[in-house]
């Protein structure tokens, strides 16, 4: 399906997707999750991909983040063809260019907050300071606590710190507020937006919550595996003004 694309920033796209399709085998059944998805991601923007459950948004993010491969189509990062990249090249891409924040936080339960961030720092040569990053997310006094000792919001902050500590160009956030209460969710959104404006990170956020989409620079709507619209918001709302 063709879409109207209005770039928020006039520049070469950081990420470019062309006719991406994805089919999964679940047990004995084949399921087509994505069909002919084409879009671009520009540096420094806060992009929200919104759609109902099962629309394919997580799958789309996984392909953009190099967590999964497309069944068809092409994807480039800074001109490098990721769809033909070897597993090693994809690993390198994830290590250097991408950071991930998941709905379920995905912290390692046997490591403290500091150690969870260290896991990422040990991978990167251009990483940020662990304590600095944890302070940035407001966890200066919770660094040596295990995930089981932290609230949901605090755990998500650790996840954000871990994603950030590698100093990636792209930050992929899959329903980062999905497991949080309303107030905490807004705080996490505020943090992400501050990171975008303060550190110039490109943030891609996935959500089923249309209200959250109002805080973005651009919103991509997806339904049944297809992009239905791409909209730039001239005046995104601050997280404190939205409600869900």
């Amino acid at each position, binding site marked *: 399906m063709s879409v109207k694309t209005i770039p928020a920033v006039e520049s070469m796209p950081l990420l470019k997707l062309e006719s991406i399709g994805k089919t999964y085998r*679940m*047990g*004995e059944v084949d399921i087509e999750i994505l069909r002919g998805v084409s879009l671009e991601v520009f540096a420094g923007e806060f992009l929200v991909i919104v759609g109902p459950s099962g629309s394919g948004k997580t*799958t789309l993010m*996984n392909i953009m*983040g*190099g*967590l*999964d*491969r497309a069944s068809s189509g092409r994807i480039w990062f800074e001109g490098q063809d990721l769809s033909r990249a070897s*597993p*090693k090249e994809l*690993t*390198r891409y*994830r*290590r*250097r260019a*991408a950071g*991930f924040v*998941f709905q*379920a936080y*995905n912290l*390692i339960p*046997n*490591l403290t907050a500091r*150690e*969870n961030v*260290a*896991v*990422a720092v*040990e*991978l*990167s040569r251009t990483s940020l300071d662990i304590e600095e990053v944890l302070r940035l997310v407001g966890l200066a006094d919770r660094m040596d606590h295990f995930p089981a000792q932290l609230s949901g919001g605090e755990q998500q902050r650790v996840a954000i710190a*871990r994603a950030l500590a*590698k100093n990636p160009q792209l930050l992929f956030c899959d329903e980062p507020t999905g497991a949080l209460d309303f107030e905490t969710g807004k705080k996490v959104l505020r943090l992400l937006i501050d990171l975008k404006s303060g550190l110039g990170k490109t943030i891609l956020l996935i959500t089923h919550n249309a209200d959250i989409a109002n805080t973005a620079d651009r919103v991509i709507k997806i339904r049944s595996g297809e992009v239905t619209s791409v909209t730039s918001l001239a005046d995104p709302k601050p997280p404190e003004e939205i409600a869900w």
Partner: protein
Amino acid sequence: MSSLDRKLLRDLKVARYLIAGVVSIIAVGVMCFIYMSATHRNLDSAMRRYYTRSRMADFWVDLKKAPASEVDALAELNGILEVNARVQSYVAVDLDDEPAPINGLVLSLPDERKPIINDMVLKRGTYFTERRQDEVIVSDVFARHHGIGPGDKLHLILNGRRQELIVVGTSISCEFVYLVNPGSITPDPQHFGVFYLKKSFAEHAFDLSGAANQVLGRLTPEARGRPDAVIRRVESVLAPYGVLTTTLLRDHASNRFLSDEIRGLGVFATMMPLIFMGVAALVLNVSMVRLVEQQRTVIGTLKALGYSDHSLLSHFAKFGALTGLVGALIGMVLGYFMAELVTWNYGRFFEFPDLYNRLYPDTYAGGLAIGLTGSVVGSVLGARAVLELSPAQAMRPKSPARGGPVCIERATWLWRRLNFAWRLVMRTALRDRLRTAAGILATTTGAGLLVCSFILDEGLHHLINFQFEKITLSDVHLGFNDERGLAMLFEVARLPGVDRAEPVMNLACTFMHGPRQHRGSITGIESDAMLIVPRDRKGRSIPIPTVGLVMSRKMAELLDAEPGDTVTVVPIKGRRDELRVRVASLTESYIGTSVYADIRYLGFVIGETLAINGAQLKVDPRPTARNLLNRELKRLPALRSVSVRTDVIKNLNDTFVVTQEIFVSLLQFFAGIVFFCSLLTTSLVGLSQREREVANLLAMGFGKWQVGSLFLRESVLINSIGTATGLPLGYFISTLVAAQYDTELFRFPVVTSPGIFLKCIIMSLVFAATAHAVVQRNVNHLDWLGIIRASD
């Protein structure tokens, strides 16, 4: 320390019960390898050192009397490195404080110390001095048993004369590492010793001045591989001097016992650890599959962060390596102490100057390698499947591979009768075939080893019982110096305390059948003998035929002979005519290679009228009667040896049985560990796989014991199948073990009884209950609410 390594250590701590199970199995396998290999090398190296240092003979030739000069000339023969001549004789020993008759072997040594073949090692005192002729050096174990030391006096009956001798020293000898009275199978230091006399004194005492009645020789390295031709030349040179017997090193009693034991250890050092390590690798593989499955999301996240497959594989390989390392280290330490214990035990009846447990770096390195390899391979194979997934796939919950009905559901008559709990158990077991198969295989191995240990234990007792309650029913066996007439039997029968006396004629000979030949002896007994009763496998007595031989199954196997075959018998002493004799029937025995014949038929075959050289006695058990008998036996000049059944049984228990019981006890311990840990790890893996299911059941309102009973059912299912298949496996392993112990000297009977299988079943139930107690504890402490919240 990197974050991943820190995570690894903490993961190990969380999975500690599971890991403890695997570590135990690895430790047992490594311990087995270390202690058996080390003990084997301790004995083997001690033997080689001793034989080399003491110049162990390659052959012995007993003869009537040969001039020393003729013996010296043998050294010129091709293949002969060195020869010595000496005087040897079996004697009676008269100790004042010892009521029972004691036998001894007198050997001559040079008057002045010099290197000789079968050189002895002084333990206490000194070599002969110039002070007196009547000095004696006594075998150290005999001296210790009787509290004899340098300066003490004793009496030997030399050539019919009672001779007082002064003890100047005690010694051990490489030719008596395993010191047994001829015809015996176990050392009896209480009743048999070796006595070294000065050559000049011995020659005079036995009327052999300037002569010898035994020749020892050493062969060149080239001749050692094929000694028979050289020996035939030696025999032909010595023939004019009345060659009685020739014994090669391979047939020498002490060397045979020692070599057989060393050989058996070598075989077990390979066989047993392989079994344990196989089980450990399997159990670890299944455990790792589950542990890695539990960390799917973590693996996906680490991959998302940018960790390569290689680094994650290394992470899980470290998991296996640490597990293997801990298990191997524990096994190495335990193996060292076991080797100490078992080597010390061997030292109780194998006399070496320097038998001790040594640290063999390559053996310990091998043990470490075995432990590490098995565990790393098991863990890497277990982790591989998840690591091959993309990060996104890894972070998604695993989709059920199979969702349809399982095969047993087709048996509707059975399926309808099962409640939901059993249906759940059956579906789980049949869908996760790898885990179920691994659990069954591991419990089968554990049960099999347990049954094997029980069968071997039963076999030990059966061996003693069969030999000494069914075959040998006499209390005392007498051996005479030479062949005697029946008058000797009547004289012995009249001794105080003797209730019954039966004649025995032992004919040492070489048996030949086709290309095969074997040294042995024929025991001639009366056809209606009651004190030696040959038996078949079922314990039924085998009648002694008037014509032909009753041959032990082992001897028949060595000769490849069957009932009805004719074998050639060549007596070792006296007329060495080749005699053709028919094998009438076979008999069973677990000790030695007995062959029986009617005593009159035997006399006819060898061309002599009824002659006896021994007697079997049934005696009054009362101590006073025994003492009277012993006093009279000490006075009998014709007596060469006395063997008391209770002493033989005691010595057998103290030597062979103790050694085997150590092995059997260890096997039971190992088997128990394997069995229990297999059940435990399978149950724990099952619980961890179905934590969410358990949480949901608890949330629905099922009680903790109800939920726990699901796992108990699964454990009972795997346990039952494993035990049922382990019972025949145990029997099979026992036959393999018995085959390793199948030598001319001993055979291990494989005896089963319903009690053995019942014991195994009871133990399997105890293990299952104990393993389940751990699982139930985990269910009781499960944070089911947290699990449900997390899945939301």
